C-alpha cells in the first residue's frame, strides 16, 4: 500500500550551467510551476475542478486532464516531466512512473518501485553532443560537396543542352542526306526495275513458246490416243470414252456434251482437233500417264509468308527482359531487324518443273549493283539518323528527370550502387531500377523500377520510390523505398524487407545535406535525431 507519497520534491534545473533549487510538486515542469501554489487550492489545468493542495500528487486522480497527479501514475492521461539535467528534459506518460522500468535518464520516474536506475543524463548528453558534432561536420562537408554537385550538374546540363542543340543541327543535315540518298536510290532503282522486268518478260515469252511446243506435242499425243480406230479422225463416240470431260458433272460424257466439245461436228481431223483440244485440255487425262496433280501455283506462294512471320516473332519478350543485365540498355525496339527478312522478295519458284530463270545479262547486272549500292548508302544514312534520334532522345530523357531543386541528384543518373548482405547483392541504380541477386547463384529479381520522389511534403527529395518489380506469390509486385540521408560519400548503407516484398534501402548522399546553419548544436537541441 503506497497511499502516501512524497508530495514535493527538490529538483535541479540547469540554467546556464548553474544548478538552482526549485521547489515544486514532483513531475511538474518549471514552466507550469506557477499553477501549483503550495497550500492554496489547486484548480485543474483543464478548469474542471478545484481541489485541496493536499490532493495534488496524492495518488488519486481528481482532474479529468490528469493535472493534479503530475508525479504519480494515478491519472490515465497524465504526463510526468523529467528534468534530465545534462540531457534533454522530456515528458513521459504517467503510466511509466514507478513501473519498474527506468525511463528518465535522471531516474526521477522510479522513486518508489525498487527499480535500480542510474543517472545516465550526463553520458547521454555527451553522446548526443558528439553525434550532433559529427553530424554537423558531415553536413558541413556534405553541403560543400553538394555545391560542387550542383555546379557540375549545371555545367553538365548546359553541355548536354548544347549537345542536343548541336545534334539537332547534325540531325537536320543527316535528314537532308537521307533524302538525297533516297532520291539517288530511287533513281538507280528505276532502270534496275525496268531491266529486270525486261529480262523477266523475255523469259516469260521464252517460257510461253516452250509451253506451246509442249502443248502441241500433248495434243498430237491425245489425238492418237483418242483416235481409237486409227482412222486419222476423232469421233464423238471416241471422245465419249473420256468421262472426265463431263461438263454437267453427272459422271458421264453424253453424246450431246461430246458434240458440243467437238464444235458441233461428228468428227475432226488433226487440224480441226486443235479447236477441240482447246476445249478439253484442262480436263483431259492421258490414258498412258497417271493423273497429274492439278497445278497449285498460288497456294504455295501464300503459305510462305506467314511462316517467315512466325519465326521472327519474339514471343517470350518478358523473359529476355528480366535476364537483361545491362542497366544502361536503352530498351530500343528491334522492329527494323524483324522486318528485314520479308523485304527481300525472291522470284517465284513455283514452276519447279520449268527451267530456272537464266542469269541477268551483264548490263542489267551493272544496273542492279548500282541500285544495291544506292540502297545500302541510303539505309546506312537512315540508320545513322535513327541512332542520332536515339541519342537525342536519351539526353532529352535525362534532361527531363527531376534531379532535385538544384539538380543536385544529377550525378546519380546512370550510376549503380551495390550492397552485399549475407545472402544477396542489392543493386540500386538511381532513376532506373533496384534489383537483388543471390550471392550464390540464381537469377536476379527486380525490386522495382523508378517511380517517383516520395519524401514528406516539405521535402519530397528525402526518399525515392521504385515500383512494379517482380510479382510476389499471392502478393503485390515488389517495390522499394530508398531513404536518403546526408553523407559525405554516396553509398547504400542498408537494405531490409520490413514487409513482404516491400523493401527499404538507406542511401547516403551529399545531395540531401542541408545548409549547416540549420543545425542546432546546443545541448537542449530539439528532439530531432
Amino acid at each position, binding site marked *: *500500500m*503506497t*497511499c502516501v507519497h512524497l508530495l514535493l520534491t527538490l529538483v535541479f534545473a540547469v540554467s546556464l550551467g548553474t544548478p538552482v533549487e526549485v521547489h515544486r510538486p514532483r513531475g511538474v515542469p518549471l514552466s507550469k510551476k506557477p499553477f501549483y501554489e503550495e497550500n492554496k487550492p489547486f484548480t485543474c489545468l483543464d478548469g474542471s475542478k478545484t481541489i485541496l493542495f493536499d490532493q495534488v500528487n*496524492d*495518488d*488519486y486522480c*481528481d482532474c479529468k486532464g490528469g493535472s493534479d497527479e503530475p508525479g504519480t*501514475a*494515478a491519472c*490515465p492521461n497524465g504526463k510526468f516531466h523529467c528534468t534530465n539535467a545534462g540531457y534533454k528534459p522530456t515528458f513521459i*506518460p504517467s*503510466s*511509466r512512473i514507478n*513501473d*519498474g*522500468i527506468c525511463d528518465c535518464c535522471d531516474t526521477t520516474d522510479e522513486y518508489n518501485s525498487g527499480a535500480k536506475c542510474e543517472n545516465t543524463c550526463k553520458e547521454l548528453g555527451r553522446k548526443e553532443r558528439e553525434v550532433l558534432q559529427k553530424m554537423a561536420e558531415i553536413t558541413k562537408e556534405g553541403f560543400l560537396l553538394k555545391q560542387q554537385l550542383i555546379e557540375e550538374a549545371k555545367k553538365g546540363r548546359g553541355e548536354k543542352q548544347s549537345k542536343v542543340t548541336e545534334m539537332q543541327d547534325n540531325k537536320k543535315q543527316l535528314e537532308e542526306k537521307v533524302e538525297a540518298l533516297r532520291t539517288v536510290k530511287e533513281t538507280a532503282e528505276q532502270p534496275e526495275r525496268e531491266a529486270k522486268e525486261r529480262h523477266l518478260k523475255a523469259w516469260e515469252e521464252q517460257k510461253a513458246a516452250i509451253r506451246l511446243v509442249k502443248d502441241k506435242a500433248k495434243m498430237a499425243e491425245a489425238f492418237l490416243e483418242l483416235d481409237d480406230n486409227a482412222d486419222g479422225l476423232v469421233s464423238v463416240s471416241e471422245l465419249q470414252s473420256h468421262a472426265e470431260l463431263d461438263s454437267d458433272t453427272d459422271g458421264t460424257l453424253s453424246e450431246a456434251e461430246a458434240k458440243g466439245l467437238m464444235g458441233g461436228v461428228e468428227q475432226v481431223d488433226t487440224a480441226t482437233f486443235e479447236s477441240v483440244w482447246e476445249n478439253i485440255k484442262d480436263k483431259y487425262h492421258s490414258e498412258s500417264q497417271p493423273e497429274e496433280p492439278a497445278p497449285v501455283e498460288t497456294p504455295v506462294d501464300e503459305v510462305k509468308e506467314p511462316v517467315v512471320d512466325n519465326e521472327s516473332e519474339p514471343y517470350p519478350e518478358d523473359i529476355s527482359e528480366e535476364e537483361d543485365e545491362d542497366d544502361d540498355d536503352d530498351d530500343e525496339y528491334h522492329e527494323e531487324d524483324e522486318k528485314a527478312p520479308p523485304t527481300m522478295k525472291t522470284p517465284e519458284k513455283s514452276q519447279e518443273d520449268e527451267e530456272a530463270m537464266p542469269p541477268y545479262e551483264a548490263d542489267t547486272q551493272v544496273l542492279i549493283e548500282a541500285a544495291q549500292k544506292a540502297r545500302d548508302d541510303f539505309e546506312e544514312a537512315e540508320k545513322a539518323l535513327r541512332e542520332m534520334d536515339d541519342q537525342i532522345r536519351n539526353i532529352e530523357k535525362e534532361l527531363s528527370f527531376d534531379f532535385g531543386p538544384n539538380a543536385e541528384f544529377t550525378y546519380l543518373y546512370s550510376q549503380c550502387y551495390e550492397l552485399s548482405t*549475407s*545472402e*544477396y547483392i542489392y543493386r540500386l541504380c538511381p532513376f532506373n531500377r533496384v534489383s*537483388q541477386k*543471390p550471392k550464390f547463384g*540464381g537469377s536476379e*529479381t527486380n525490386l522495382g523500377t523508378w517511380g517517383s520522389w516520395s519524401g514528406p511534403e516539405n521535402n519530397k527529395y528525402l526518399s525515392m520510390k521504385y515500383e512494379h518489380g*517482380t510479382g*510476389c*506469390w*499471392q*502478393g*503485390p509486385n*515488389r517495390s522499394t523505398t530508398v531513404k536518403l540521408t546526408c553523407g559525405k560519400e554516396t553509398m547504400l548503407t542498408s537494405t*531490409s*524487407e*520490413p*514487409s*513482404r*516484398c*516491400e523493401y527499404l534501402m538507406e542511401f547516403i548522399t551529399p545531395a540531401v545535406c542541408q545548409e549547416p546553419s540549420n543545425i542546432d548544436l546546443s545541448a537542449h537541441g530539439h528532439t530531432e535525431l
Partner: protein
Amino acid sequence: MAASCDSFVLLLFLLFVSAQAVDRSNFKTCDQSSFCKRQRELKPGQSPYRALLDTLELSDSRLTLQLINDNNKVRLLLELYRLQGNMTRVKINELKPIKPRYEVPDVLISDPITEALSVVSQDDNSLVLSLGGNEQRLIVSAQPFRLDIIEGPQVLMSLNSRGLLAFEHLRVRKDTNSESEETTGQQKEEQQTSEDGQIKEEEEEEKPGMWEETFKSHSDSKPNGPSSISLDFSLPGVEHVYGIPEHADTLRLKSTENSDPYRLYNLDVFQYELHNPMALYGAVPVLISHSTERTMGIFWLNAAETWVDISSNSPDTVSSDAPQTNVRWVSESGIIDVFIMLGPKPADVFTQYASLTGTQSFPPLSALAYHQCRWNYNDQEDVKAVDQGFDEHDIPYDFIWLDIEHADGKRYFTWDPIKFPTPKDMLKGLMDKRRKLVAIVDPHIRVDSGYRIHNEIRSKNFYVKNKDGGDYEGWCWPGNSGYPDFTNPEMRAWWASMFAYDQYEGSMENQYIWNDMNEPSVFNGPEVTMHKDAVHGVWEHRDVHNLYGLYVQKATSEGLIQRSGGVERPFVLTRAFFAGSQRYGAVWTGDNAAEWGHLKISIPMCLSLGLVGISFCGADVGGFFKHPSAELLVRWYQAGAYQPFFRAHAHIDTPRREPWLFGPENTALIREAVRQRYALLPNWYQLFYNAHNTGQPVMRPLWVEYPAEVTTFSIEDEYLIGKDLLVHPVTDEGATGVTAYLPGKGEVWYDVHSLQKHDGDQSLYIPVTMSSIPVFQRGGSIICRKERVRRSSSCMENDPYTLYVALNSQGFAEGELYIDDFHTFNYQKSKQFIHRRLSFSNNSLTSRNLAPDAQFSTESWIERIVVIGGSRPSSVSLINADGVESALEFEFSSNPAVLTVRKPSVSAAADWTVVLR
C-alpha cells in the same frame, strides 16, 4: 513469396500449399472415406444386435454383458458404469478381438470414480438399473439391443434406438490363407449355425476400401482391415445441440441430413471456408445438448477419424412427434467408450466433463494480456523496433512472437545466426521492459545429420515409423522431416528436457513456446497429414491421430514447467487439440483470413471450444491471410480484446500491420481497445482461476446463464465473459448500430462505458461509432479493474483496484477478487494467494476472505469504488478490519446514477466494509 525466402520453401509452397488454396478436393468427403461411406449406407432400422442377458455380470460398480450380432454372430462386450457426479459410461468392445483394439490413454485425468449400480428389475427382454437418486434408471433392452436413460417417466437419452450400432470386428483377410480358420474359430463355429449370418458377412467382405484405400495419389494399406464403429443417440425433447469443435460453423450444430456429417480429424486446412462441417485443426468429441429442461453431454472418447451425423425431427416436420435430435457417431477404429453426462444444468455438465478430462490450466497473467505476432519478425532489430513502437504509441503489450523464420533453417530449438545472433540480448531487452517472447517449436524435425535434435531422436529411435518399419518422413517447413512419436512417454520426457535452459541455447525464462503444425501437418501426406498406416509403437497412426497434437503440447508444457524446477506456470499455444488439451495451455483457431466473416465466426468457434473445456481460445486478430482494411483491423482488435486469447497475427506475405500503421485515428482506437483489455485483466484472471478450479467456461453462450430463455439458444454474435459481462462486438463493415439481446427477466444491465441502465429480456438497438465496443455489466455483479494501464501487465502487478459495483433491482451485487504472484504454482503448492468475496447489500460493501487458509501479501489497494444504479448517500465511511471507522469522500451523479467513492486506500488483502448512509 519474396526472393529473400528460402527457395526450398518456395518450392514447397508452389507444390503443396498454393495447390491447396480454396481446394476442397484435397480433403475427404464422407463418401471418400470408405468407413464413413460404409457406415452411412447403413440406415436406421432394426438393430441386428441382441443383449445376452444371461451373460450379465454385476460387480459393485461395473456391469458387463455380451451382445451378439445375429447376422454374423460376432460377440461384443458391453460394460456399463455409473460414475460419480451423475454420469454413465458405456463401453463396447469385441468380446474376443483377434488383436487388441486401441483404447485412448492419457485423456482422462484419472480412472473415473464409480458408484454402485444396482439392478432394479429384470425380465426376459430387459434389465432396469438404478442410476441413483432422481429416479434415474438405465434400461437395457435385449432384443433389439438398446439402452434408455430415464428420469421418472421421461426418457432422457436412448442409445441404439435407431439400430445404428455397428461394430466392424477385426478379421483376417479372406484372400490370405486358411490359418484364419483357427484364429476366428469361435466365430466360425457360430457362423455354421446360421447360414444367413455367414452370407451377410461375406457381403461385408466385398465392400471396397476395407483392406486398402486410395485418396488422390495416397494409398492406405490398412493391414488390419475394417475396424470402424458406430452408435446412435436419441435425445427426446432436444432441439439444440452444440460442441464437437473444431468447425468453422455456427454455435448451434446443424442437421447434417443434407450435407456431410461433421468431421473430427485434425487437419492443416489451407484457407478454410466458413459454414461447413469440414474438419479443422483440432477435435473435441464432446456434444452438448440443451433444452429448457435439461443440459446433457456426450463424450465419445475416440481419437481416430470421426464423423458425427445430426438429424432432428422437429414438431413441424412430423406433426405428432415431440422434437427430438438424433446424433450418430462413427469412428474408424478403436472402441466405443462413451461418457453420458446427465447435467441437468449447464454448469453441472461442465463440472462433469472437467471431472473426466481436467480443467483449463491457469495461465500466467501476462498470457491473458495482449500478444503481438507476425510471420515473421525478421530479426533482433525488428523485434526491438516493434517493441519501441508500442512504447512510442503508448500501447501496452506483453508478448512478442517469433514464427518459423527465427530458427536456423527451420531447425527448432535453434536461432538463425544472422537474424538472431544474440537471442539472450534480445530476451534481456524485453525483460528490461517486463515483457516476454514466444518462439515457435513445431513437431516436424528437419532430417539433417548436422542437427542435434534430429540425431538424438533418431538414435533414441523416437521417430514415428512408416508402415515398413523405417522412420516416417514427410515434407514440412524444413523440407524432409521426421515426426517424433509423442505418444511414447519416453519421447515426451526427452522432448520436455530439451526446454531446459542449458539444452535450448539462447532461451531464457521470459521465453515461452508455441506448437504449430501438430495435427500433424505433412505437406505431401494424404489430406496434408500423416499416413494412417504409419506406426506409433504397436498402434497405427489411424488409432491415435487426433491425440497427436495434445501430446505435443503436453510434452512442451511439461518442459516449460521442468525448466523452472516446477516453479513457473507454463504458457504454450497449440493449433491441434483434443479432449483434455485444456490442461496444457491455449488454443487458437488457426489460419483464418482478414474478412468480416472470419471475424464473426471467431465468436461461435471460441464459444464451442469453451463449452467443451477449452477456455483459453482466440482467433488471429486482423486475420492471418490477406490484408485487413483499417476498419476491419480496428473492429477485430475491439472484439479480440474481449476474447480469452488476444493475439494479432499475420501471414508473411501481407503488408505490415502493427497497430500504428493505419493513421493516428486508428492507432488511438486500437490503443483504447487494448487498454480496455488491460483494465479488465483482474476480471479475466479471476475467471481463469475459476475455470481452473471448477471447469466453468470463461467465454459463455448466453444460454449457459439463461438456460430457460429459448431466445438465447441460437445467439452467437454476443456472449458472456463469466456471467457478468455481456459483449456484443461490432462485426459488420460500416456498422452504425448493433442489436444486442439483453437476457434475463428482472435483470438489469449497465453499459460499461456510459453506465446507462437497461432492462433485461429485451433486444436493444445500440448506435455505434468506430470507438464503440458494446459491453454490459450485469446488475448484481462487482467487477474489479486496474485502471492504471501500463506498458505490460507485469508493470501493473502492484497497482490499485477500482471496484465497479453494479446493483440489481434489489440493490444487491457481488463479485470476487483473486490475487497471487501472477506467474508461479505457489498459489497451489503453498496456498499463496488472496481470494475475496465482495458483496454489496443493505448499502454496505464488504470484502470477506474466501480462503482463510491462504496467505499472500500484496501492495495493491482499493483506489476507487464505483457504485452504479444506487441513490445518493449522505455519507460514506470505511470500517477497517479493526472496526475503526473513517469518512470517505465521494461524488454522485444522478443520470446515470453513479456514486464514486474516493480513495478508500484499504489493502486489497484486508477485511473491510464501506457503508453508505
